[in-house]
């Protein structure tokens, strides 16, 4: 296979005049012409997410009402500590601010963890994989003019489960995975996208979410109870309930808590049910396993034991993040994405090189390279001249 040897691309042979030859890997190491710092993978992440602290923190692009959630919690707790606690410490016990403090810290930490943790995002398929899957789909011998089926059926614990093909991520979604349109990512064990925390809730952060709403229920109920006690004691003290209400700004936590405690308690109850039956909100809403279509369907993921279900959802080993936000892009790709030359797509389209690297780089970085990316078809790499 003689023609498998390296052949330099003659820059003059290209229609687009390239002033300098592409200073990439291969033989010349002209990296000094383009001193690019190595880029991290989060910088070219295709989903709609934002990253902070050099990729350590990930949030959805729309922060939703996370500031509101934080604000409500901080203000309510703050008012509670400032106005109600001194009174209650004096008249009841000093445990109250301690318990309140612990709950408050718990709520805050779990809220931030829910918001800033990767929920279980699946990285998109590489061009090679996508091409391979396309080939397999086309090979199913579909002769009709209709497009080939984009679902696959698997048998899980004697239950037929349909896997759908995700057109954005170019792969068949694993079971229980769903594509979140707000974040534009496929998320494993997708529960729901929570605007209150500004992130999807999925496999990796469900336990944080659950702990958050449970501890928030306790905190809300606790503050509600304490403020009620406070006002009751004040009212007893002489001047009546109305005066007590007017007097102390400690009444504001009462109002907030009164309206929120029912919904938060309700939500905690609902999620406790989901945890105990190993269901996701998504599956429950769609009625995937409720058998409403008349068939005998059961949840194939349930361990049929409440205790084991709870443990597997909340205490299972913490799965790793699959998107490797802080990993470095291979040097040649970061140089490619960084160069943002117009010649790039032309070069990739014209030359019969293994376009995997180029295609990967081009697909991964839509912003710097603004020309027609779809021009680089994933099948081009198969026409590598040597083989």
């Amino acid at each position: 296979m003689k023609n498998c040897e390296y052949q330099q691309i003659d820059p003059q042979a290209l229609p687009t005049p390239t002033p300098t030859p592409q200073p990439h890997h291969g033989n010349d190491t002209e990296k000094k012409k383009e001193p690019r710092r190595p880029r991290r993978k989060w910088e070219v992440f295709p989903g709609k997410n934002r990253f902070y602290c050099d990729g350590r923190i990930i949030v959805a692009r729309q922060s939703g009402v996370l500031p509101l959630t934080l604000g409500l919690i901080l203000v309510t707790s703050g008012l509670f500590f400032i106005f109600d606690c001194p009174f209650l410490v004096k008249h009841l016990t000093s445990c109250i601010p301690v318990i309140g403090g612990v709950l408050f810290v718990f709520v805050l930490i779990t809220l931030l963890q829910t918001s800033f943790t990767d929920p279980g995002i699946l990285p998109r398929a590489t061009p090679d994989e996508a091409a391979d899957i396309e080939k397999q789909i086309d090979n199913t011998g579909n002769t009709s003019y209709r497009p080939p089926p984009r679902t696959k059926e698997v048998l899980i614990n004697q239950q037929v489960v349909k896997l759908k093909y995700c057109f954005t991520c170019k792969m068949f979604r694993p079971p229980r995975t769903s594509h979140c349109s707000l974040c534009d990512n496929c998320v494993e064990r997708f529960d729901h996208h929570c605007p209150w925390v500004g992130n999807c809730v999925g496999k990796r952060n469900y336990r944080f979410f659950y702990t958050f709403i449970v501890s928030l229920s306790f905190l809300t109920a606790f503050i509600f109870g304490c403020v009620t006690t406070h006002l009751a004691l004040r009212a007893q003290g002489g001047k009546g309930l109305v005066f007590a209400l007017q007097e102390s700004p400690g009444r504001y936590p009462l109002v907030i808590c009164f309206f929120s405690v029912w919904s938060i308690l309700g939500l905690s109850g609902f999620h406790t049910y989901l945890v105990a039956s190993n269901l996701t909100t998504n599956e429950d809403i769609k009625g995937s396993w409720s058998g409403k279509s008349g068939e005998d369907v059961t949840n194939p993921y349930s361990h049929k034991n409440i205790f084991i279900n709870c443990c597997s959802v909340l205490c299972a080993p913490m799965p790793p993040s699959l998107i490797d936000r802080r990993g470095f892009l291979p040097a040649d790709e970061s140089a490619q994405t960084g160069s943002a030359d117009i010649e790039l797509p032309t070069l990739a389209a014209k030359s019969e090189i293994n376009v995997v690297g180029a295609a990967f780089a081009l697909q991964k970085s839509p912003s710097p390279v603004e020309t027609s990316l779809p021009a680089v078809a994933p099948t081009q790499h198969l026409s590598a001249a040597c083989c």
Partner: protein
Amino acid sequence: INTYRTSSNQLCSSKVFIQRHYSSGTICKFQTKFPSELESRIDEQQFEETIQTLNNLYAEAEKLGGKSYLEGCLASLTAYTIFLCMETHYEKVLKKIARYIKDQNEKIYAPRGLLLTDPIERGLRVVEITIFEDRSIGSGR
């Protein structure tokens, strides 16, 4: 042809993808079906053994048992802040898997012109096997 290659200098390569096997649910498991493209390169039993070992390692990573429950409960008591400073059980096994793959590549796959890619680099979707067809083969990187 200039090498725009990312990680390997070899040009003539094709890839085979071993997909996930979902019959046991959502745990990470790969299909052990022997792909026809590898028939001339490696024997079926060797391939199956590699995939099976990988499957066993992933099962170990995701195993539910007394130890993992304890870890989970303790973590929840600290509001999961313990994850910030401790290496989780899963991560430890992933390192083991990385070592195993490196070892397999060095001993078995590279001499036959093949390269296993750690599935974690592909989001645990596939085991990617690159087949090099260049005669002047070096060790696959």
